[in-house]
Structure formats: C-alpha cells, structure tokens
C-alpha cells in the first residue's frame, strides 16, 4: 500500500493511548461523582453514600445504571437534532482536552519509545483554549434546543460567563508562556523538571490564583455555577434533559474538572514532576510510572480543592460574577503580565 503511507505502529500506539486516556478519564470522572458526594458528606459531618458495596464504592455504577434505565424524554416542541447533539458536544469538548496533556515522559516497550502524550503540538495551550471555547456550544445548543425559557436563560448566562472568564484565563497564562517561551505543555513541564528549576507556582502565584478562579468559572463549578442555579432557573440549561443525556451533561462537568486540574498541574505544579527526585537517574519505564502517579496525585488534590470550595462558598450573584471577571480578574492579569515581562527584561539585563 503506497497510497496510504502511514506508520501503522505509531497509529496503533496512539489509538491505544487515546483509548486508555479517554476511558481512564471517564473512569476517574465516574469516581469523581462518588468523591463529590463523599467530600460533601465529610465536610457536613455525615458519612455519605455507604450502602452499595464496601464503603459505597459501587455507588457510581448504581447511579449510572439508574441514569441509563430512566425514561428518555425529548420534549415535543424541542429541536430534536440539536437536543441530542447538545450533550454529545459537551462531552466531546470535555474529552478533547486530554489530547495535549503530557501524562508522563515516555515508556520503552516492544523496542519503541512511546511518548505518553497523545499529541505534542507546538500550540498545546492554545489548543486547550480552542477546545474550551467549543465547550460553550454544548451548553448553548442544549439550552436553546430545549425550547424552555429557563434553559435558554441559563445557556446565555453560561456562554457569557465562559467568554468573560476565558479572557482573564488567557491573560494569566501569557505570563507563564513568557517564562517558558513555549506553548507546548511538554516543554513547559520539562522546564519545571530541569535541575534547579522551580515549579511555575513559585514565579506566578498571582497568575495561578487568577487561572484557578477562571477554571472554576469555566467548569461551571460553585461559586460560579450560575448556569445551573436551581433557585432562580429551576435546573439550568439541562432542565428538559433526562436519562443518560442529562448524565452526559453532569459527567462532562466532572471530565472538565479533571482536565482543568491536569492543565493546572502541568502549568503551575510541574506536571509529572516529583519534587526532590531526579527522574533522569531512574529507568525510563519506572520514571514514567512514577510520573503518572505524581500527575494523578496532583489532579486528585486539585479535584478535592474544587469540591472543598463547592461545599464552602455560596454562589455569586450574576452582577458580582461579571464585576469580578471584568473589573478584577482582567486588570489583575494584565498587571501580572506587565510585572512578569518587566522582571524577565530586568533579569536579562537590558
């Protein structure tokens, strides 16, 4: 076959990696729903779900089964195609982010050097932004296609919130990019891993804070969960949804959480770097496994913080949200960018 000259080994390697990453993140998301309930319970002095299986560990499967078995209702006046497309888009956009996240360095298997990253493109971070901005469509299309006033209101809220916070998020990132001089996540991580290199959080505490707040807003997590504000919008943009389509929306939120935790870990906390450990002295396979474990630990910690915040802080009002986004976050991010630029220039001795 000269028509399709493809490196089949590479193709298979990447397909396997995609399958592992996608199903792995879905599995983690499954258990994140369980963790959410457990964390909420523990923070509120109660034991949480503990009936299904030992310690309630089978609870997510019971929940999933319930969602699948429930009756699927598509409202008569809804736009059928878009109604079905909405949750699919939300889920796809959430999962697509995982393509550029470096899960670890590389493993050596079957005589091949396999990179544990689906695609190391030189615009990694911009790719994430592109995908995140696609995530809005899942909410907007679903909310509009439901043909329900509350859903539409929630969809519009969600979209304007996402656009507002994307700006501050991008600006806070520029400072990190100026430090690393690359858009590739792998390069950014490797720079933090290098001997004597500190994690970016040491240089960019303010940038991290802004990024974290914006990530909360992008994931529609409390205190910024206005698109699903129960008390004013009934149930938000997924009000008309039932069964697994609702499950997809709820699930996409958790996948988004995992992905944004992974991105934050890579950008500010050294990705798969273990502090005070020189990975280059280890065998590559062992280093890779340790790296994956380190990244997963960081992700779990971030997810816990997400949940901890959710069960502490009440929801912002919409005008407070917009004020915070436009009048606080963006100026702060700009100042952070200017200071970083000045510091880099001063250090370079211009």
């Amino acid at each position, binding site marked *: 076959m000269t028509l399709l000259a493809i490196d089949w080994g590479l193709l298979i390697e990447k397909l396997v990696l995609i399958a592992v990453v996608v199903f792995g993140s879905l599995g983690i998301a499954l258990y994140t729903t369980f963790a959410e309930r457990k964390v909420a319970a*523990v*923070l*509120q*002095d*109660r*034991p949480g779900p503990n009936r299904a299986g030992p310690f309630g560990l089978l609870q997510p499967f019971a929940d999933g089964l319930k969602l699948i078995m429930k009756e699927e209702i598509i409202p008569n006046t809804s736009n059928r195609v878009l109604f079905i497309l909405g949750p699919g888009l939300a889920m796809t956009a959430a999962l697509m982010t995982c393509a550029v996240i470096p899960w670890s360095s590389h493993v050596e298997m079957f005589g091949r050097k396999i990179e544990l990253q689906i695609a190391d493109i030189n615009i990694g971070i911009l790719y994430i932004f592109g995908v995140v901005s696609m995530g809005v469509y899942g909410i907007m299309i679903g909310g509009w296609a439901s043909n329900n006033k509350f859903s539409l209101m929630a969809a519009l809220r969600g979209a304007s919130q996402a656009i507002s916070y994307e700006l501050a998020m991008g600006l806070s990132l520029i400072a990190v990019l100026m430090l690393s001089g690359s858009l590739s996540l792998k390069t950014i991580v490797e720079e933090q891993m290098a001997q004597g290199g500190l994690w970016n959080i040491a240089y960019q505490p303010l940038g991290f804070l802004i990024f974290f707040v914006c990530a909360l807003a992008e994931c529609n997590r409390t205190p910024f969960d206005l698109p699903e504000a129960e008390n004013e919008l009934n149930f938000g943009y997924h009000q008309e949804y039932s069964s697994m389509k609702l499950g997809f929306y709820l699930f996409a939120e958790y996948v988004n959480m995992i992905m944004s935790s992974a991105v934050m870990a890579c950008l500010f906390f050294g990705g798969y770097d273990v502090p005070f450990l020189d990975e280059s002295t280890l065998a590559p396979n062992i280093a890779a496994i340790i790296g994956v474990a380190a990244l997963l630990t960081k992700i779990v910690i971030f997810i816990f913080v997400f949940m*901890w*915040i959710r*069960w*502490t*802080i009440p929801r912002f009002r919409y005008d407070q949200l917009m004020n915070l986004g436009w009048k606080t976050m963006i100026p702060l991010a700009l100042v952070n960018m200017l200071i970083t630029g000045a510091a880099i220039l001063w250090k370079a001795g211009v």
Partner: protein
Amino acid sequence: MQALTNRAQAVNRKPMTIMEKLYLPSIAKGMGITFSHIFKKQPTIQYPEEKRPFSPVFRGLHVLNRDEEGRERCTACGLCAVACPAEAITMEAAERLPGEENLYREEKYAARYEINMLRCIFCGLCEEACPKDAIYLSETFAPANFARKGFIYGKDDLLIPDPTKDPAGFAAAKGEGQ
C-alpha cells in the same frame, strides 16, 4: 418601630472595604471552617442496624394487652373510641361463650377491633381512657405500606403475643427485652 426582642440587629450597609472586596481572607476563613469539619464526629446513626433509643414517654403503635395467663384484657367498653379525638378506633363487641374463658378475661370481648393508623394522631388518650389497661402505646411506629388498607390495623396486628405460648415475643413487645 419597637423591636419585639432585644436580639434584633441593624443590617450593616456600609460599602465593603478593600480587604472585604478581595473576598480571599473571608474565603480562606470559610474554607478553614469546612476543613475542620472533616475531623468532627459524625452524629449519623446507621438506621436499620443501629437504632436510637426511644424516650420512655414515646407514643407509638398501639398494642392490645393480655394478662399473665394470656387472656385478652379488652372488654369492648368503647371508652377508647369515645376518647379518641381523631375517631380512629372502631370495635364490635361479642359475648364470651362457655369454654372461651382461657381466651378472654371478662364476659364481653372485642370481636373486631380496628385502629386506622392514617387517622390516629398518637395522642395516647385511648391509653388513658382504658379502665382495664387493655390498650397502650408501644415504642415503635407504623411501617410504610403500599396501600391505605394496610394502615387499618385489626386485632391480629394489635394483639400482643401470648405470654404462655411466646414469652419472648411478649417480653419484647412490652419493651422489657431490651
């Protein structure tokens, strides 16, 4: 306007200071409070396995009592039905026939005795009205049911186990076993 109690406080409408506008200190404080709750003791009781003791004055489901020889105490005098504010109790009296002395203590007994648990307000007035100590309220409550019919308790549901045949059940129903 005069305040009814001295607990009323005027709402502070001062504009927020810069520290308050930052939100961060108060958020950190709040998160500290929620984090400290991780280590607090959980007051949860795992219900079916673990039960909370009822208070001794708890008024639950009714029990029709028997005497020590296992004879029904109730004589169907109807005082409980009259005393009942919710009109939940109905009964039909019958005369004791010769040879039934081991079943009923007096010459008259209740052939049918029904309490509608959906109407009952568990006030305990029937217990107080009864001259024969035949009815009292136990320390259990009515379990859930699928139909209204299931909440109309007849004699089979209400009678205490016979102390001569099932002493353990009798003791448990009287609340002495625990």
